[in-house]
């Protein structure tokens, strides 16, 4: 039983990452698209559509970080130094976009314009640097005796840059489809116009990453293309293509919720692909989940809390969403 605990915490970690990428993904995506919106009144509504929930969304990032330190300290203690610069830049991005919620609505004229830029620039920077870190993660991190032994600048590769751009496009897709779901009129029309280019770009980057990764990493290539894996591992990529087609059709038919839900499905499939590629590593390709895990008493202590508390968290976060259900109207939220 105790030897299964790292597996279950791997699942918890994957759950936290998925919750983060989806929920903060759409509100970062709204930020990424922010400056392209046609009018300031659209930006007000766009921001208000996420104002009551962005903090809850971002908390999944802290959840992921603290599950990592609690359950996989070796991964925490080696990955974070390895991605020092992208993570610090991500934090600056998150700082600027976070305070912009409060400050933008209190500013006027040029001040407000500055916070528009801070919000959008911060969101884009956070998405890009998360992608850089993810790309460097896929590229592998050198660890000896539980200490990171690579270079501080090692994250700067063309591949990481592609993943960074891909994540911007992916988050923007989530943001655009969120606007279709949560707003009406002008911002919704803007979401519709933005969704399709975002979808195409996301797919192109996903394709590039999916080709590049196995070419660079024989470990990943063997996982996907060796028998018998290949007999069933063709399914997730095929589903991704289907889902993407579904988004395209749903946009054609002016559906409101479906594009957003399918975009989430696309992200989940991409994450699944990532998990398949890198399993069972916590730090690719040097430390497994089992080697990175805390001692059994620590995992057990953490396990009880996670199993009991996370469902409660999901319940009241769901309630918070329900309170602000329906379309975000002008004159609600900030500025009211």
């Amino acid at each position, binding site marked *: 039983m105790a030897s299964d605990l790292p597996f279950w915490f791997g699942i918890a970690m994957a759950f936290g990452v998925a919750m983060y990428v989806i929920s903060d993904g759409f509100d970062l995506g709204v930020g990424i698209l922010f400056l392209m919106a046609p009018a300031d009144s659209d930006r007000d509504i766009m921001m208000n559509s996420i104002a009551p929930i962005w*903090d809850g969304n971002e908390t999944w990032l*802290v959840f992921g970080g*603290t599950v990592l330190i609690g359950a996989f300290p070796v991964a925490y203690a080696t990955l974070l*130094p390895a991605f020092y610069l992208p993570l610090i830049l991500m934090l600056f991005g998150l700082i600027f976009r976070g305070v912009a*919620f409060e400050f933008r609505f*209190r500013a006027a004229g040029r001040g407000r314009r500055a916070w528009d830029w801070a919000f959008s620039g911060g969101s884009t920077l956070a998405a890009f640097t998360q992608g850089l870190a993810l790309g460097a993660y896929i590229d592998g991190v050198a660890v000896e005796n539980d200490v990171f032994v690579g270079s501080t600048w090692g994250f700067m590769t063309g591949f990481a840059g592609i993943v960074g751009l891909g994540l911007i496009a992916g988050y923007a897709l989530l943001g655009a489809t969120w606007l279709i779901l949560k707003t009406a009129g002008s911002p919704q029309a803007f979401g519709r116009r933005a969704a399709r280019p975002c979808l195409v770009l996301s797919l192109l980057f996903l394709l590039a990453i999916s080709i590049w990764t196995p070419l660079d990493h024989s470990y990943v290539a063997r996982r996907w293309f060796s028998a018998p894996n290949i007999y069933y591992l063709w399914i997730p990529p095929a589903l991704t293509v289907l889902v993407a087609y579904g988004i395209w059709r749903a946009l054609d038919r002016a559906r409101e919720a479906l594009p957003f839900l399918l975009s989430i499905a696309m992200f989940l499939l991409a994450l699944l692909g990532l998990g398949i590629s890198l399993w069972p590593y916590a730090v690719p390709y040097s430390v497994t989940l089992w080697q990175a895990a805390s*001692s059994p008493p620590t995992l057990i202590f*953490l396990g009880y809390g996670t199993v009991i508390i996370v469902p409660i968290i999901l319940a009241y976060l769901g*309630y918070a969403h329900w309170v602000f259900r329906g379309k975000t109207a002008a*004159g609600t939220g900030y500025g009211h």
Partner: protein
Amino acid sequence: MNPETVLVSRIQFALTIGYHILWPAYSIGVSGYIVLLNGLWLATGRAVYRDLLRFWIHLFALGFAMGVVTGVVISYEIGTNWGGYADKVSNVIGPFFTYEVMTAFFLEAGFIGIMLFGMDRVGKGLHFVACLFVALGALVSAFWILAANSWMQTPAGFTLAGGKFQIADWGNAIFNPSFPYRFAHMVTAAYIAGAFVVIGVTGFYLWRRRHREFARAGFSLAMWIALVLTPLQLYLGDLHGRNTLQYQPIKVAAMEGDWDTRRGQPLVIFAWPDQSAQKNLYELAIPNAGSLILTHSWNGLVKGLKAVPRDEQPPVPYVFYAFRVMVGIGALMVLIALAGLALRLFGRLYDTRWFAALCAFSSPLPFFAILAGWTVTEVGRQPYIVYGYLRTADAVSPVAPRAVETSLALFFIVYAVLLLAFFWYAAHIVFRGPTVHEPAERPHAVRPGKDAAPAGRAVLGSPGDMSPGAGG
């Protein structure tokens, strides 16, 4: 480890966590005050409490956002900059951080939206519950983070195996010897900070004779809180100090400027502690008073810094002076609270202008005291990161010094900009004043998602809002 990385990482952590702690203190304090206002409004139905509630929720939101964004930084810096520490201590205190997120951050994040924007969407009772949960979340967060910090000061409930800490007893690790004192001392500090933020803003209104009914109600309440909490804080501080004397006597020696171990230790009022000479210059001291205060006995034995080798001593001047700043500000706040009581008894609390003016500028006091207090306890723990077991120099991440220097410079610039922006927009809210008599309260029948909300009053913050007394 590269000593340059150690030094720059320490400076960056001191900057980012010192900056961060201001906002949780603000959030805990102001959210407690908001819960009180909300309760009073529900209990009495007096409109002034509702006006105060709405006003303080606006100011709370600004500081809360600062706390969120600067707090995320800390949760990642523990790994980016202190990977050696994370690697060695996580089996014991790693879960504290996870529990902090699960029991506190999500609670705050889940209900902050309802607290800020949900007043018209949920009933009064549920809005009160949302405010209560946000305040509770802030408090629970302090519980876990102070448990972790106290464990670093007075580690307990663990064993050492292969250079890493392993858990032996969760109860002992969480409720380690210094935790109850540090928790009580910090939480009280935060509520005092909240009270003095209110005293500052409402004192400003009383001084400038604006929004007077509003200001009186808020001021009166906050002065009562200060009157109860500031003397209590002196007492808790004394308890905390005596606990430190028991577990970290060298830290206390640095606070007191005591170099020699002796009975009848004098109380050093002022000095220039010279660490290279291992003695005080220009010392002004009261004989035996040090022993009396620390041990409550005229001839009690008090350890001096020289009881340990020099490389085990913390940097004494920082600890020595920070301690005096903290105690001095604490005494000043007690005086303000007592002066307020005296004026109240003479019926002059609200119209003594010099006092209102003094109060208007008192808001920074508790925050400086908090920074000074944390300087005492954190610098006083050096050269250890886990007291007696793990040295700070062995805890740092293997990151190129140039990278940390770059991030430190960026933090400095970005945090300065943020602080200016916070004061700018907070001043904006204060100068604009409360909305005391709402001309048109929104009809309660607006159903979320069903009706379009009224589109009026869409945007606050035109420059005209800066004019004094608008809305009052």
